[in-house]
């Protein structure tokens, strides 16, 4: 274990990570957010979904350091007496879950389509690439909004899992294109190389060549794209939830919290909206910076210049 850490520290990527404060600060922040969100039932001081512990007389309390605030509620409470800090941690859990699920689905769809288009070629290639062109001609947020809106209209009182499904699909649909294009481009290069020809000559099946031989060689850049995509997906989810077409109200994400806080913008209870907003910004910027650093660090062309 210790040997591995030393090895990592002496590698190019490890050294550049330790030398860049932006990299490790954004990594720490991202890690803290993911940790706090994943273990929110144990980390959060209260359970915002436990109706038994909610008390309406605790509603709309300011943060601890402001007159009238209580030590039990560090960031104040919302309109139903829920602890803001706990609500943010639970909300972040939902935001991250939707974000990760959408990115994962995008990667799977995009990689499969890219491999098929690049390796098989022919009409399949033409069809997939036309589809990508069409997708790229609309802004991602517009596609997501329209699909989420149509989904909301078709299933007005949908079961929770269905609502989440529609949401994930609406974020995924404009998202897979970038992976399909990247994978197709590198598959085109790889499939002309000798190891692929060798596999073809000894009669390995196409699907086996694609997924066992070509895939490991084209998957590298995908990881970097996916990291940056997580930040975009979280922001898209928050925007949809803020507009009321995102997660179901029974499981509020960061965007839902901001939507609730929007009603108290003018009554002086700024903490109900500002803290979830800041949490969203910190999370999105940290993940973005981490992705930027990864892109630079894993790009051998940029690295050789140093």
């Amino acid at each position, binding site marked *: 274990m210790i040997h591995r850490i030393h090895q990592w520290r002496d590698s190019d990527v490890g050294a550049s990570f330790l030398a860049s404060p932006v990299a490790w600060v954004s990594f720490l922040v991202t890690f803290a957010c993911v940790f706090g969100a994943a273990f929110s039932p144990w980390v959060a001081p209260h359970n915002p979904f436990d109706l038994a512990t909610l008390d309406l007389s605790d509603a709309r309390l300011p943060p601890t350091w402001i007159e009238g605030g209580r030590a039990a509620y560090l960031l104040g409470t919302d309109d139903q007496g829920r602890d803001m800090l706990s609500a943010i941690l639970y909300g972040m859990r939902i935001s991250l879950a939707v974000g990760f699920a959408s990115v994962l689905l995008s990667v799977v769809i995009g990689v499969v389509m890219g491999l098929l288009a690049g390796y098989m070629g022919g009409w399949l290639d033409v069809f997939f690439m036309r589809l990508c062109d*069409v997708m790229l001609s609309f802004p991602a947020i517009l596609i997501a909004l329209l699909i989420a809106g149509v989904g909301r*209209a078709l299933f007005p009182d949908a079961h929770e899992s269905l609502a989440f499904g529609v949401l994930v699909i609406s974020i995924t649909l404009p998202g897979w294109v970038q992976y399909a294009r990247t994978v197709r481009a590198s598959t085109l290069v790889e499939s002309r190389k000798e190891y692929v020809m060798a596999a073809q000559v000894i009669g390995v099946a196409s699907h086996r060549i694609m997924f066992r031989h070509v895939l490991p060689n084209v998957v590298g850049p995908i990881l970097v794209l996916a990291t940056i995509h997580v930040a975009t997906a979280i922001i898209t989810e928050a925007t949809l939830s803020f507009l009321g*077409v995102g997660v179901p109200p029974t499981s509020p994400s960061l965007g839902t919290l901001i939507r609730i806080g929007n009603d108290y913008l003018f009554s002086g209870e700024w903490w109900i909206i500002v803290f979830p907003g800041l949490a969203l910004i910190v999370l*999105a910027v940290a993940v973005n910076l981490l992705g930027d650093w990864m892109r630079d660090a894993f790009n051998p062309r940029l690295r050789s210049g140093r």
Partner: protein
Amino acid sequence: MIAFIAQRILQGLFVLLVVALVSFVLFQYVGDPVLFILGQDATQDQVDLLRRELGLDSPVVVQFVHFLGNAVQGEFGMSLRQQISVSTLIAERLPATLELAFVAAVIALVIGIPMGVYAAIRRGSALAQVFMAISLLGVSLPTFLIGIFFILIFSVGLGVLPSFGRGEVVSVGGFTTGLFSWAGIRHLILPALTLAIFQLTLIMRLVRTEMLEVLRTDYIRFARARGLSARAINFGHALKNTLVPVITITGLQLGGLIAFAIITETVFQWPGMGLLFIQAVNFADIPVMAAYLCLISLIFVLINLLVDLLYFAVDPRLRVRLSST
């Protein structure tokens, strides 16, 4: 070249057809319009008669063609929530969105270009770095949060600007605008700024990159050698040559502005098409949703077609490559 354009037009038509199909399915889902019109206690004869009159007894394909015919004429029926015809409703809301998008585009150009020029000429200076930091923030912050923080600062905190609605509007030949009254302009500032920020940062980065590119070229060096003033070189020679792509891209981003307006309009309760769409979604007002879907995809298909034609006109290499294949 004709083949290329024809292919693009076909592709656009295909997109429109898919969107129309989605709208049609939405309509099918609304429920039986006959019961909606006649009420529960109509006789079977009345129901059958109306069914024939509305063409509901014909096959689904014929109904879809009928729907397409109506959609082409902008006829989407009545709004379920407001009992006004959808076309009137959209015509009422369209000017607000266009005004917002137009002013945002102007703001993005007027602020973005000078910032980009400065960031290129004084590269590495403190202010240029501040500009770059702002642009990074503008790209990574979600639009709706920028709007909310603007409201918190300028409406709640300082109390200097309104955050809600359009204020006073004047109708000019059916096109309502707030640009002719002080109240209207004051109401426009925050939403337009919010909508502009993303485009502004894009334009700034584009101008900076293009300027840096141009400043390296031989004719700029020659101009320096001739002893022209820095001002004449930077603005007369360099900026002029960077503006072509910038203006093209801004024009093409107008569609993006109309799409992003959905978010801005909701934050500021700006009575445009985007807010209309979100309200329609929340009230399951299918005719309005369907009309918006068709209209926005038409706008995008037209803009994309324009882009393709424009690239064709601007880039001769594309013409050569396509005619050779």
